[in-house]
């Protein structure tokens, strides 16, 4: 059996009286692409925030298997610590460092593995300079991979929307993750762009040996690349399984299209 990279155990998130996520049990295995779908307000992004430490789940645990193969309970850890362990994410409403250049955006993402302290950095000691040189190499490699190298000195906010999405994904990749969480990567993209993105996600999964968990509304993308799908509605997991099973699942169809009144 392949190993879990991420497992949530009975994760529940309440905001006052609202139960945003109820008893969520996700399993993500190594090298899989898992999709989390559901109508608006189903609690998908909340689930992401519980996993990445933005919120602390009201109940339940989040278990992550790090690069060394050991299981770690990451429930309620700081987002920065979780990122350092190898969980990177993108955001639903793109959160780039808008006024910084494309280059700096990616360069900042390599900061978390910096070992030199600030004094070595301030005095530009040799080991810091070595690390800095490596950081620049990483950035160059990533930016060339998505053809953003030519616009590296532009402000991130000046890029077209689609390019900003790619930049955000590349920025997440620059943290050298094992698990990548994508929050609606195809939002606002046309069918052609979505098809390209599908190809891109598959490619980075293979090239960087990633495991991917994503929230997505574009069903063609989801059905094409997901290994398994979890469907959320009002915080509850109403279905899980492979794309074919989900497509024919009664409850999923009801959740998306509503109850048929004549029935």
């Amino acid at each position, binding site marked *: 059996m392949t190993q879990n990279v991420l497992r949530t155990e009975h994760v529940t998130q309440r905001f006052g009286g609202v139960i945003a996520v109820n008893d969520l049990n996700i399993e993500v295995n190594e090298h899989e692409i898992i999709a989390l779908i559901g109508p608006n307000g189903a609690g998908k992004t909340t689930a992401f925030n519980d996993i990445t430490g933005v919120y602390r789940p009201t109940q339940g645990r989040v278990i992550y298997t790090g690069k060394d193969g050991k299981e770690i309970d990451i429930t309620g850890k700081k987002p*920065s610590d979780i990122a350092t362990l190898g969980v990177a994410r993108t955001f639903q409403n793109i959160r780039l*460092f808008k006024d910084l250049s494309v280059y700096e955006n990616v*360069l900042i993402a390599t900061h978390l593995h910096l070992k030199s302290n600030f004094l070595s*950095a301030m005095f*530009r000691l040799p080991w810091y300079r070595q690390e800095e040189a490596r950081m620049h190499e990483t950035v160059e490699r990533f930016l060339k991979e998505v053809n953003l190298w030519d616009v590296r000195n532009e402000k991130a906010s000046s890029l077209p929307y689609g390019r900003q999405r790619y930049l955000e994904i590349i920025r997440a990749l620059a943290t050298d993750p094992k698990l990548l969480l994508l929050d609606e990567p195809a939002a606002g993209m046309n069918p052609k762009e979505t098809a390209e993105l599908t190809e891109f996600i598959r490619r980075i999964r293979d090239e960087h040996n990633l495991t991917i968990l994503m929230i997505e509304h574009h069903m063609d993308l989801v059905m094409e690349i997901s290994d398994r799908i979890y469907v959320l509605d009002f915080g509850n997991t109403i279905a899980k399984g492979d794309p074919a099973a989900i497509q024919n699942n009664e409850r999923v169809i009801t959740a998306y299209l509503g109850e048929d009144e004549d029935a």
Partner: protein
Amino acid sequence: MNKNGKRNFLLTVVALIVLFGLSCFVQGEVDAYIRRIVNLCLIYAIIGLSMNITNGFAGQFSLGQAGFMAIGAYMVGIFTVPVNLRADVFYAVPMNPHLVNIYMPLWLALIMGGILAAIVAGLIGTPVLRLRGDYLAIATLGFSEIIRIIITNANTITNGALGIKNIPSLNDVRYIFLATAVSYILMTLLLSSSYGRAFKAIREDEIAAEAMGINLFHHKNLAFMVSAFFAGIGGGLYGALLGTVDPKNFLFTLTYNFLLIIVLGGMGSVTGSMLGAVIVTAGLEYLRIFDEPLEIMGVAIPLFRPGLRMVVFSVLLMVCVLFWRHGIMGTKEFTWDKLINFLKHPNFGRKKEVQRK
């Protein structure tokens, strides 16, 4: 790229040597009044940039600079007064017997003052840097006042409200210039390192920065402590320049001078802080004409009296903030590349898109 790097480095060295020559000239040839303004500009530039680290680069609105300056200034005041003159200074309450025979040369007192300010900043930062925006500003302002009040009441160490006199006066532009240059170089190196970029990431978007693995608390605290360190150094120089320190010098209103400098110069710009410091300090001096009575054709204009200077200055500031919101430099920097590019193709900022080849 590398060739430009070498050229820029050489240009910087040459500029520093020229400026040092200039400061020797100011020291030798120029009258005491101008010399004093130059000294103040330099010291205010250090403190302005130190404040810019937290406010402009890390994006944390902190107003504690006066407190950290006080720590640095008192370190210089307490330890650089010659031992035989100390009885004259502490005439009301004798100085603490443990301290009375400890003497430090100025450079050591400056560094110790910086270090103590950084330690205090670390202690304050632990609870306070969890706050954001206005709340952080109020909390740091409060701590700055607490520092001042502790100093006012620690009679045997700081001579309380009487202040410390007889500090060997440092009226040497060259010394202050070198201190400023070293501080600027160190702060610039930090800000252009990976840590400086992490500060900027926090300023731009805390949530994204955290998701990129940047520990908000550590980095904010680091920015705060480095900022306090250099504020301490600047405060020490300020004390040494005045020759006396007094708690009233470090009222929270002092902080606003530096806030003004960085807002005017540009939040998040190293060279902007330098420009801002010169404009604010020299500007305040040259606006003194407004404080003197003015008679036009024998009629005294009633408005011209002490205090008008500040009114005029405030109006200028408001105009600047209204129409020039990002200050003179914004987050941009002066660089040799830009200057050389400008000299080659002077376009006076009209045409921003230069054709790429």
